[in-house]
C-alpha cells in the first residue's frame, strides 16, 4: 500500500518553489532595499512632521498633530523661500532649455572632430555644483571678479553684485543656467542624433526652408527629449541648494534663500527636526505636483 502523500512542509516549498514563490523570492532583496532607503525615510519624514522635535532644548519629542503645518502656512520665511525657488525654477528651466538647445544644435553640426565639442559640453555638467557656485562667486567678486573687471574697462563703477537682491538673484540664475544647460544639451543632442537625415532631405525637396525644417521637423521630433529634460531639470531646480549656498548663503538678507536652504537652516542650524520635516513634506508635495503635470502631458501626447 502506498504511503499517503504528506502535505509539503515550508522547507519543501522553499526547496522547490512554484513560479510565483520564486518571483517573490527573487524580488525580495531589491524590494527590501527600496523599503529601507526610499519608503522608510519618506515615511519617517511624514511621521516626524507631526511632532515637536527641537533637539536644542533637550525636552524630547511631543506629538502635536497638524500644528507644524498650521505654523508653516503662517511662516513668511517659508513663503519667501518658496517664492524664490519658484522664480529660480521659472527662470532657469526655460533659460537652460534655450541655451541647451542652442548648444545641442551647435554640437550637432558636422564638425571634423567631434570630441572637443562633446568635451566642452560635458565639462560644466561633470563639475560639482558647489564648484560651479564658487567659480561664479569669484566671477562676481567685488574686488577680484572678472565681471567687475570687464565692467570697469567699459567705464562702469565697480559694483557689489552679490550684495544687492536683484543682481544677486540674476547672478545665481546665470550660474544655474550655465551649469544646467550642458545637461540639457547632452539630452537634446542625443535626441537630435535620432532624427533621420532623410527627413530633412524630404523636407528640402518638399520645399521647406532651414527655419521651416527646424520648426516642422526638428522641434516636433525633439519633443520627447525636451519633455524628459524638462522633468529632470524642473525637479532639480526645485531642490536648488548648492549654487546659492556657495554664492550668497541666501543673502543679502533672505533675498536668495531657496526652500532647500530654508529647510537646511531650520533642521541643521536650528535643530528643529519636526518643523524641518514639515517643510520638506511641503517641498515633496510641490515636486510631486509639477511632475504630475508633465507626466499628464506626456501620456496625453502618447495617446494622441
Amino acid at each position, binding site marked *: 500500500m502506498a504511503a499517503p502523500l504528506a502535505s509539503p512542509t515550508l522547507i519543501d516549498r522553499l526547496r522547490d518553489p512554484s513560479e510565483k514563490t520564486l518571483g517573490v523570492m527573487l524580488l525580495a532583496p531589491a524590494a527590501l532595499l527600496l523599503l529601507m532607503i526610499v519608503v522608510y525615510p519618506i515615511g519617517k519624514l511624514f511621521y516626524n512632521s507631526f511632532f515637536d522635535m527641537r533637539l536644542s532644548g533637550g525636552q524630547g519629542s511631543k506629538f502635536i498633530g497638524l500644528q507644524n503645518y498650521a505654523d508653516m502656512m503662517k511662516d513668511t520665511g517659508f513663503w519667501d523661500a518658496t517664492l524664490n525657488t519658484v522664480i529660480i525654477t521659472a527662470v532657469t528651466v526655460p533659460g537652460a532649455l534655450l541655451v541647451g538647445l542652442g548648444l545641442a544644435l551647435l554640437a550637432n553640426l558636422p564638425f571634423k572632430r567631434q570630441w572637443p565639442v562633446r568635451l566642452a559640453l560635458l565639462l560644466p555638467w561633470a563639475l560639482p555644483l558647489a564648484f560651479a557656485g564658487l567659480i561664479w562667486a569669484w566671477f562676481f567678486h567685488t574686488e577680484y571678479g572678472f565681471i567687475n573687471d570687464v565692467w570697469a574697462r567699459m567705464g562702469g563703477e565697480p559694483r557689489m553684485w552679490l550684495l544687492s537682491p536683484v543682481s544677486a538673484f540674476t547672478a545665481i540664475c546665470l550660474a544655474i543656467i550655465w551649469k544646467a544647460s550642458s545637461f540639457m544639451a547632452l539630452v537634446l543632442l542625443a535626441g537630435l542624433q535620432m532624427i533621420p537625415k*532623410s527627413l530633412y532631405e524630404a*523636407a*528640402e*525637396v*518638399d*520645399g521647406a526652408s532651414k527655419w521651416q525644417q527646424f520648426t*516642422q521637423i526638428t522641434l516636433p521630433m525633439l519633443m520627447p527629449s525636451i519633455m524628459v529634460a524638462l522633468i529632470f531639470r524642473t525637479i532639480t531646480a526645485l531642490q536648488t541648494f548648492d549654487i546659492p549656498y556657495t554664492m550668497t548663503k541666501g543673502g543679502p538678507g533672505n533675498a536668495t534663500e531657496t526652500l532647500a536652504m530654508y529647510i537646511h537652516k531650520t533642521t541643521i542650524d536650528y535643530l528643529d527636526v519636526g518643523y524641518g520635516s514639515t517643510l520638506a513634506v511641503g517641498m515633496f508635495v510641490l515636486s510631486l505636483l509639477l511632475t504630475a503635470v508633465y507626466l499628464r502631458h506626456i501620456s496625453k501626447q502618447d495617446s494622441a
Partner: protein
Amino acid sequence: MANVQLRQVVKRFGDTEVIHGIDLEIRSGEFVVFVGPSGCGKSTLLRMIAGLETTTSGDIEIGETRVNDAPPRARDIAMVFQDYALYPHKSVFENMAFGLRLRKTSEDEIKRRVGDAAAILRIEHLLDRKPRQLSGGQRQRVAMGRAIVRDPKAFLFDEPLSNLDAQLRNEMRTEIKKLHLRLGKTIIYVTHDQVEAMTLADRIAVLSGGKVIQYDTPDEIYNRPAAKFVAGFTGSPAMNFASAEISSDGTSAVVGNVTVTLPESLRTASAAYRGKTVVLGIRPEDISVDRSAGVDCTLVPARVVVTEPLGAETLVTLSIGGAELVARARPDVSLHAGDSVQAQLASAKLHLFDVQSGVAIR
C-alpha cells in the same frame, strides 16, 4: 513635365572622383532607370539631380533650365526615398499636404489634390493615421502620394522597393508602372535590381564605377549588351561566359575541344581576333537540350553536371568543352547528372567580348 539633361557631370568627394563625366538625356515623360551594383554612383547621380548633392562640374538641366546652383526646393522635383522618409509626427494627410502647405496652396486645393492622390493609391482610409501605424507597403504608397500631390516636373525614386518583401515588391512594381502610364510623368528611378530595371524602364542606364556603360531600351540592353558587365548584370540566371579562342579563319570560336560556329553577323568583327582569346557569351535560353535541332544551331556535345527544377522550368548546368554553362529547359526534361547530351547553341544569339576591356565585339 520636363526633360532632364546631364552634360559631362562630375562628382568628387574630396580627392575621390565618384562620377566621371556622365552625359544623359532623359526625355519628357520618359521612365529611365539607373541600374548598377552598389557603389556604382547611381544614387549619387540621382541625388545630384535632386540637388541633395552638389555637382562638382558639368551641367544639370531640368526642363531647359540649368539647376546646378538651385536648392532642391527650387528644382520642382519630387523624390521617393528608400526609407520613405515620412514625417513620423504628422498624419498621412499632413505628410502628403506638407509640400503644398509650404507653397501656400489653398486649403480646398490641398484637400482636392491629396484626395485625388489617395484615391489613385487606394490609401483614402489611412489619411488620419500616423506613419508608425502603417505597414511597409502602405508607407510606400504614402511616400509616392507625397510626390504625386506636388505635380512636379519630374519624379525621382531612390531604391523605393528595397525595404519591401518579395511579394509586395512585385505588387508595388506593377503599381509604379501603372502610375507612370496614368500620369505620364518623367521618372528617374534608381535600383540595383535588374528585374525592376527591365520591367519598368523605357530606357535603362547601366552604371559601373561612376560611368554609364550602356544607355538603351531594355530590349537592346538584354539582347545587344555593349559590354560583358551589362550582359552579366541582366537576366536570371545571368548570361553564361566561357573563355574561347577565335579560329585562324575567324569563322568559329573554340571552347576547350568544342568548336562553335559564329554567325555571319559576328565574322567581320571577329576577324580582328583570329588566334586570340575572347569571352564567349550565351544566355541560358539560347542553349537547348530538349528541343529538336533548329535551323541556326550549332550542335555540341555536353555532359549534364546538375539539374535544378524550378517548377515552371528546369535549369540544367552543362559541361561543354570544360566550361560550365547553364541551359533553360522544360520542367519535364528527364536528364540526370552524368548524362551525355547534344546541346544546341543558337548561333545568332552568341556574343563575343574582349577579354581585357569587356567591350562587346560586333
